[in-house]
């Protein structure tokens, strides 16, 4: 008998297709809904996952069908945690320009990282920059 707080734990390997990514995101959102997370929290997780998962598939693995995205995620009564690793070269998140600067605000891309940081409680990258770990603590009811 364990005392694990996690009510759902999943390790998955996704092919590098956007549809596979969206299918996975839909599964996570259904878990959050079933656990009665608020629509506001679910919106935030949805936005962050959309950015993180699509980034891994599209920019990390460059939609290469020979490459995969490795995902570990878990859900407790008040926390959602996920690690997403691609097979790409990685990137330096600190080198991403601030998209809210007047100089960059008209660029059509580069907002994903900001949105993840705003909507999740914690966002960490590994040194290589090809694995992102996200954590969200739900708002108290």
């Amino acid at each position, binding site marked *: 008998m364990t005392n694990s707080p996690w009510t759902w734990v999943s390790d998955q390997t996704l092919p590098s297709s956007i549809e596979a990514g969206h299918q996975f995101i839909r599964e996570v959102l259904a878990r959050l809904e079933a656990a009665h997370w608020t629509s506001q929290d679910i919106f935030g997780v949805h936005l962050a996952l959309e950015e993180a998962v699509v980034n891994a598939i599209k920019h990390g693995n460059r939609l290469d069908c020979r490459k995969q995205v490795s995902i570990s995620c878990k859900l407790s009564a008040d926390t959602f945690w996920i690690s997403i690793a691609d097979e790409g070269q990685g990137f330096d998140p600190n080198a991403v320009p601030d998209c*809210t600067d007047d100089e960059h605000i008209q660029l*059509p891309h580069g907002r994903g990282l900001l949105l993840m940081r705003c909507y999740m409680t914690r966002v960490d990258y590994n040194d290589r920059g090809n694995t992102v770990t996200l954590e969200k603590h739900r708002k108290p009811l």
Partner: protein
Amino acid sequence: MAAHRRLDVSEVGDVTVVRFRDRRILDETSIQELGQELFQLIEEYGRKKLLLNFSSVEFLSSAALGKLITLDKKVKAHTGKLKLTNIRAEILEVFHITKLHKLFDIRDDEADALASF
């Protein structure tokens, strides 16, 4: 005007009012199609006053925001005006986080937006 796959388009006076058929704007293919249909209104049909009504939209990704920014540039290049209305609170927050509320003219509702052209 050709039929649209992603948009419902109507004319109110000289303003072109656009509503989105997708509740969630996140799929790359849909965003591409949606962008092409919006750009067509400006570049092919010469519409100068564009009002985007987001009342049916529940979610949009940053890729969709990027498409709106490109649309805004095209509208300005054609000396037109672009206004956004009926954006639900959760999505409006995204515009504020990204500071895009400073770039776009966002109005509460369609009547307010129509009166402001």
